[in-house]
């Protein structure tokens, strides 16, 4: 979409073409896909009419099984059946060990930052497992819609850190998806609730899922959703409730800690069933077959259950308090609390949350589907199917970003709850004569010491011109995009030399690893990777040509002199000539060349849109 089509909606020159887009809720326990069809938003069902796709993947020598079938096989084949992979994505092996769960998988013990799970078909990473879930959902959507998806919005917990977001995006890349946006789950829920112009004000979204907890405070004003603060715990959810119950059973039935994987799986399943039963009934009964073949029978009352899970629910109120503090609000100033996530079905959760915010929580939309519905609405807008829509979502970064300084301390560069996108620069200098390289350690977290924060990446600045100590002025710019992903650029100011930045993601995969996985995946064994890159470049070239042509038609004469216009047009025609050629590198170069020559024009258009938006504005216009 070209620039002025946006500032002057409804005057699009291109004929309106409906493109297929979907919203995906990639959950810990269950995943869903939703879309907008004939103006109606709906979650898509499988051939048996089921909305939820269990986020369970089983690897067998005959192929990969995803969903209900995989889940039902989890007990008999625990080592090759991966569930709750969202808890592992974007995490390191050390994190995984301290997650508190007795995870029934075998991890390969090695130095690699990304945990690798051993299965019958070899090692898989959480990113690959997530990609399998995405593929299953996309297949469901494409079957239902009868065409290829042009783009998707994938939701992530607001409290997901940079590594977890990057890993989710990598999974989408592996599944060959065009990601329009990573959208925070609470924001998606707010959109689904249609908290639109009718409900301007400040709202809280309490999202307790299978494995993550999020709280977001947002202000709604005429279609703009402005997230004021967010908080949470990316390792707290319904799974923990199950675990509390399972531990209670173990205690009651005298089951040993070191019981087998299958036993633990069964206990977790029974615990989960009891938890769900207690939503409607006052007691849940158990009949557990022990390893010696004997049976243990028992009963859990709702009051006992409440006692077991109270500490977990209270743990969610701490981030609530902090998010309110960050937004500079009291619980009484919140108008509504929207409940999201399957775990908010638990009556005790509703009770304690209602008490905390002194208002009965909103539970009108199915808490399992609300996030996917919001994501689908946003995807429909982002893909360009609703050019006149004025909805805008302004999100924040959930955790502070900083760098390591002398003495193992962290200096914050972008504090938490800063509205994104954001760019901040920081200057460094050399401490030795003739120093030509410098190490920068990027961290995430709220604590003061490096050891208490999470290491995101290490950057090495090279090619600094040799100077006396303290003379170099190296400006490092941290930029966080609308998806919450960080990028870093470094430049030596006095000489203008752009220092090379080498990124070593602490918990992610490198580009070449992803490339390798793509190559290895069955789909691309048939489909040549080169051909894929060529198609990508051709599509991007068409996009650039289309946008520029539309722009010239609209305001070329207004914003460009005749001579400038001629220059832009000749550059454009050069790309048109090669855009459908067979040489992907040539197309890439052609795009870059055109962009270089037109950058002034794109910027001029943006500036012009901005001044148009502000021109003639007076107080009355806004009131």
């Amino acid at each position, binding site marked *: 979409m070209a620039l002025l089509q946006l500032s002057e909606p409804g005057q699009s020159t291109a004929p309106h073409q409906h493109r297929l887009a979907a919203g995906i809720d990639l959950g810990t326990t269950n995943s869903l896909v939703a879309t907008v069809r004939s103006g109606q938003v709906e979650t898509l069902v499988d051939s048996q009419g089921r909305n939820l796709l269990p986020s369970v993947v089983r690897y067998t020598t005959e192929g990969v099984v995803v969903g209900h079938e995989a889940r039902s096989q989890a007990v008999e084949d625990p080592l090759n059946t991966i569930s709750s992979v969202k808890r592992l994505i974007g995490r390191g092996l050390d994190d995984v060990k301290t997650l508190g769960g007795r995870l029934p998988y075998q991890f390969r013990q090695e130095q690699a930052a990304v945990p690798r799970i051993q299965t019958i078909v070899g090692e898989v990473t959480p990113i690959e497992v997530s990609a399998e879930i995405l593929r299953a959902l996309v297949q469901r959507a494409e079957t239902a819609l009868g065409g290829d998806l042009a783009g998707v919005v994938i939701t992530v917990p607001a409290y997901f850190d940079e590594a977890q977001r990057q890993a989710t995006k990598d999974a989408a890349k592996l599944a060959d998806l065009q990601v329009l946006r990573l959208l925070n789950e609470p924001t998606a829920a707010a959109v689904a609730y249609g908290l639109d112009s009718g409900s301007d004000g400040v709202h809280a979204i309490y999202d307790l899922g299978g494995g993550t907890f999020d709280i977001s405070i947002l202000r709604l*004003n005429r279609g703009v959703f402005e997230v004021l603060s967010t908080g949470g715990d990316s390792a707290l959810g319904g799974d923990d409730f199950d675990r509390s119950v399972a531990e209670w059973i173990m205690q009651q039935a005298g089951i040993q800690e070191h019981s087998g994987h299958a036993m633990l799986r069964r206990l977790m399943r029974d615990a989960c069933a009891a938890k769900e039963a207690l939503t409607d009934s006052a007691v849940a009964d158990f009949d557990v077959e022990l390893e010696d073949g004997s049976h243990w029978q028992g009963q859990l009352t709702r009051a006992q259950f409440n006692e077991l899970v109270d500490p977990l629910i209270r743990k969610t109120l701490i981030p609530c308090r902090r998010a309110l503090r960050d937004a500079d609000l009291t619980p009484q100033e919140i108008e509504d609390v929207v409940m999201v996530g399957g775990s908010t079905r638990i009556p005790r959760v509703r009770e304690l949350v209602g008490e905390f915010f002194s208002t009965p929580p909103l539970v009108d939309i199915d808490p399992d589907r609300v996030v996917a519905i919001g994501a689908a609405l946003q995807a429909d807008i982002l893909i360009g199917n609703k050019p006149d829509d004025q909805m805008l979502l302004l999100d924040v970064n959930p955790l502070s970003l900083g760098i390591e300084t002398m003495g193992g301390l962290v200096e914050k560069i972008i504090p938490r709850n800063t509205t994104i996108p954001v760019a901040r620069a920081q200057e460094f200098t050399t401490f030795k004569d003739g120093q030509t390289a410098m190490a920068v350690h990027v961290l995430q977290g709220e604590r003061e010491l490096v050891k208490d924060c999470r290491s995101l990446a290490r950057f090495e600045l090279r090619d600094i011109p040799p100077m006396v100590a303290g003379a170099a002025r190296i400006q490092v710019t941290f930029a966080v995009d609308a998806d919450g992903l960080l990028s870093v650029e470094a430049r030596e100011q006095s000489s203008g030399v752009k220092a090379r930045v080498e990124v070593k993601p602490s918990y992610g995969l490198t580009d070449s690893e992803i490339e390798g996985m793509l190559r290895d995946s069955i789909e691309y064994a048939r489909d040549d990777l080169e051909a894929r890159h060529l198609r990508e470049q051709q599509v991007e070239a068409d996009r650039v040509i289309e946008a520029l042509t539309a722009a010239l038609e609209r305001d070329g004469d207004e914003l460009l002199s005749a001579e400038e216009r001629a220059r832009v047009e000749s550059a454009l025609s050069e790309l048109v000539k090669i855009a459908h050629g067979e040489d992907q590198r040539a197309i890439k170069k052609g795009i870059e060349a055109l962009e270089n020559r037109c950058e002034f024009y794109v910027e001029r258009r*943006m500036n012009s849109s*901005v001044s148009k938006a502000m021109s003639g504005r007076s107080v009355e216009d*806004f009131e």
Partner: protein
Amino acid sequence: MLDFSKNFFELFGLPVGYIIDTDQLAARYRELQRVVHPDRYASASGQERRISMQGAAQVNEAYQTLKDPIRRAGYLLSLKGIDMDLQKETTRDGEFLMEQLELREELEQAREKPDPYKVIASLVADINRRITALVGQMAVQLETASPDQLEAAREILRKMQFLQKFRYDAESLEAELDEMV
């Protein structure tokens, strides 16, 4: 880089000055983001997306600067040619520093009190009152902004920074207490 306009006030179409209509500022912020935000360019070319991201980041930075009375004061002073190194310069007002020491002591002792949250909340409320008073003084000094007044404004800003640091530390202590639950 984009050159939206000469300064943040002009970007938002507002008069350059310390007293600001925050509702109007917020409304214009939303208007601007509707034009520049990357979500408006989700299916545009890579170049448009990149420039839109820069634009949105600049609008965010401008908004955060103008919204916060302490950052706004620093920004206005920098527009008047006064660039402060707030890491290094500090107030020499003995009475003010004495008060700060006492408040710090109270904060230190808060964690031993039966209800530390209450102690912290009342300290933060006290600090907020002090900041509000300084905001009023700042507005007076910056209204005509003679050289003497600018010097006075600079001194007020040093004190504001002090109070802000205190507020930050109080909130950190609260967060620390939360984690001990």
